[in-house]
């Protein structure tokens, strides 16, 4: 069954994470995505595990459902390949690193095709003193949006999210914007869209900005990250868990104290703290009550604690590593990970698709491409003859295959 975006053609002129991820999402939805790469390839081919050569692990995850064409864009012949592909495309996902190239200026490309949805991703935005910087800096965007204040030890070196959240948020918002612009195309034709890593992180922190409208009042259950210590979860005998019983009745709390063998808490000087504003999760003084809860939890395996908390309708979950997540029953049940054969690499596992369409399923159809793997088929569909293609290859304009 065709996916929701069956029939749309996408050209990707981007590297790293944000642009490639957005283009992959469109590909997952069923669009035909051609990834144009410089002769050296997307920089992300060299990121992550190097055991796979130019198919680095990060690249494998961000580039399925695409065909690769690798051209020397500094030559007229290479730029002409890009222009021909765009003349026939519905969408261009570009980043500012590519859009600065004299041969690939946005105005010149959008003039080729009145129905083109052209999206450009930069680090800090299309206006202002830092306009149109390439979006490959992850840490800089996290620092600029003060995202790093929510991790690590207050007053010490900044800590980033291990996941490239700035680039991923920008990629996710880019996909949204392209889809919306495709929807509006019947009415207004093609248009240009701009997105930045910094702007997306600023948007994602909106709740905090509103809280700061009234700094005297801004304590909130999860808005106090400026003053709370690091959160590692709650240690049990065999690992850490998340737990919260904020809504439990006194009767339920009493049951939990019994089930966890912690009735000693009732005569502890800190009983009131544990029993009220320290009951795990986002409770205001959870961090102060934590050592008392852990005194009981550390005597028990985590599954027993989880069961006891759930028995009183509280919230309790494992704190997983990736290996534990992937091995979990729920992950296996819903097919969280997609594994399929990659020619030459054997079975390759990537993260499954986040949306489940009942009638037009999104799907993984192609593994991440080798550099320039699809040059012949893509160029011949764009009107190049076999001898044209041979000539481009012999002049060094076209790489791969």
């Amino acid at each position, binding site marked *: 069954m065709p996916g929701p975006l069956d029939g749309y053609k996408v050209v990707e002129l981007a590297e790293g994470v944000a642009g490639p991820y957005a283009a992959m999402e469109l590909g997952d*939805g069923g669009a035909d995505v051609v990834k144009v790469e410089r002769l050296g390839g997307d920089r992300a081919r060299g990121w992550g595990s190097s055991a796979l050569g130019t198919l680095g692990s990060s690249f494998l995850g961000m580039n399925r459902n695409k065909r690769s064409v690798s051209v020397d864009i500094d030559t007229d012949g290479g730029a002409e390949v890009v222009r021909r592909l765009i003349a026939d495309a519905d969408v261009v996902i570009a980043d500012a690193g590519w859009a600065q190239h004299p041969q690939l200026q946005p105005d010149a490309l959008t003039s080729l095709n009145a129905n083109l949805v052209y999206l450009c991703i930069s680090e800090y935005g299309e206006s202002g003193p830092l306009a149109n910087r390439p979006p490959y800096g992850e840490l800089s965007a996290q620092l600029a949006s003060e995202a790093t204040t929510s991790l690590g030890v207050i007053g010490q070196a900044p800590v980033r999210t291990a996941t490239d959240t700035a680039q991923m948020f920008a990629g996710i918002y880019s996909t949204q914007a392209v889809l919306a612009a495709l929807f509006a195309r019947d009415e*207004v034709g093609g248009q240009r869209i701009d997105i930045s890593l910094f702007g997306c992180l600023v948007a994602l922190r909106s709740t905090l900005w509103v809280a700061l409208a009234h700094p005297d009042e801004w304590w909130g259950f999860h808005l106090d990250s400026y003053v709370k210590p690091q959160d590692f979860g709650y240690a049990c005998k065999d690992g850490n868990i998340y737990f919260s019983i904020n809504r439990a009745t006194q009767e339920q709390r009493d049951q939990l104290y019994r089930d966890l063998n912690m009735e000693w808490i009732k005569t502890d000087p800190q009983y009131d703290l544990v029993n009220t504003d320290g009951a795990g999760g986002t409770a205001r003084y959870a961090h102060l009550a934590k050592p008392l809860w852990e005194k009981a939890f550390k005597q028990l395996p985590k599954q027993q604690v989880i069961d006891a908390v759930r028995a009183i309708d509280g919230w309790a979950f494992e704190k997983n590593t990736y290996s534990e997540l992937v091995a979990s029953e729920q992950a296996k049940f819903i097919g969280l990970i997609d594994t399929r054969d990659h020619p030459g690499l054997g079975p390759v596992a990537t993260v499954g698709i986040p949306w489940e*369409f009942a009638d037009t399923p999104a799907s993984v159809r192609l593994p991440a491409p080798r550099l320039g793997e699809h040059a012949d088929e893509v160029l011949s569909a764009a009107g190049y003859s076999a001898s044209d293609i041979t000539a481009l290859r012999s002049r060094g304009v076209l790489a791969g295959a």
Partner: protein
Amino acid sequence: MPNGPLSGIRVFDLTIAMVGPWCAMQLGAMGADVVHVESRDVTGAGVPPSIKGQSIGYITWNMNKRGIQFDLKAQNDRADAYELLKTCDVFLMNMRPDVAGRLGVDYESVSKVNPNIVYVAVTGWGQTGPMRDLPGADGQIQHYTGFGSANGVEGSEEGEIYRHFTQMDATTGNYACQAILMGLLARKRTGKGQRVDVSMLRAITALQTGRVTEYLSSGNDPKPLGHKAQSVAPSQAFLCQDQRYLGVEATNEVEWRGLAQAIGKPELADDARFATNSDRVAHRNDLSAILEPVFASMPLDYWVLELGKTGVPCGRPMRWDEIKNHAQVTDNGYLVDIETKSWGTVKTGGPPWHFSKTPARWFRPSEYGEHSEEIMAEVRAELAADPKTAAARNQ
């Protein structure tokens, strides 16, 4: 003033807490007529702080919508809700799987009322499997999906979660927004609505695509690396002479050469230990040991200028007072001022997407049930004029 890209689309927004409301807020910003359906006044519930009975979460997650009051357990209100549904293009809810049936808004009921509706259900853990009925929200999703396993101070044995909860909720909402848009595009082609499911578990695992794929390739769970990147080097913060941290990154060999040149050590670019990104990752401690004293020798602003000359990505921490007045924010309109009844004027994130022809809009959240009469009057007039559903009219 031109309209947003989704003008003409109406959304039945039966959402609570953050994930669903955030999703619908994006649709409203893009021009859809989002009708937020509430069964009771929750403006004061949920996320503290509240001022005059309105909570911060409600304000931030319910902009760009109109509000209507329905008690879906009451027959009269349910009949009205079905009338509204007939004029809607999208149905969105984020309650646990068993709740929809009780409220008469499971897919079977809704699609009977309006067969062409794009019906999107957001859950914590999915519609099937042993965890399907468990609650899901930001904190526990961070723990369960491993998001909290890889963050933290370098050398820490245990990873920590991101303390500003809301980003996982918002991200799931953003994936749901994509699903709705894809469903609308598919409907243009097929003429049919359909059911779409999105879960926080899938969404937040997808958010970690890079790290999870690295784990799947290598079999090694990532360890906390502080400000350093797992798979790129250098990509880390350096303490400068003026005791400020500067983030510096070289994401390919061109930027690496630029970095070596900017710090006056061009010979580093020819050092075999640092030739490619993989080499630099393998020798990241050697590299840090060389670079740290260099950056410590001059103030941060000096390095920003020098690295800028050779095109090396770099940046420095900013705090709210600086962010809200920064030219990048003001010139690009990344923050907007919203007038609220309870809180006065507040600043919040504005549209992250800039459309050249169909600009997004941004307006204050509705008060509880504020537009109930207005919306039902419109619905009755629309249905009287054309009894077919809006979805059918769009074909």
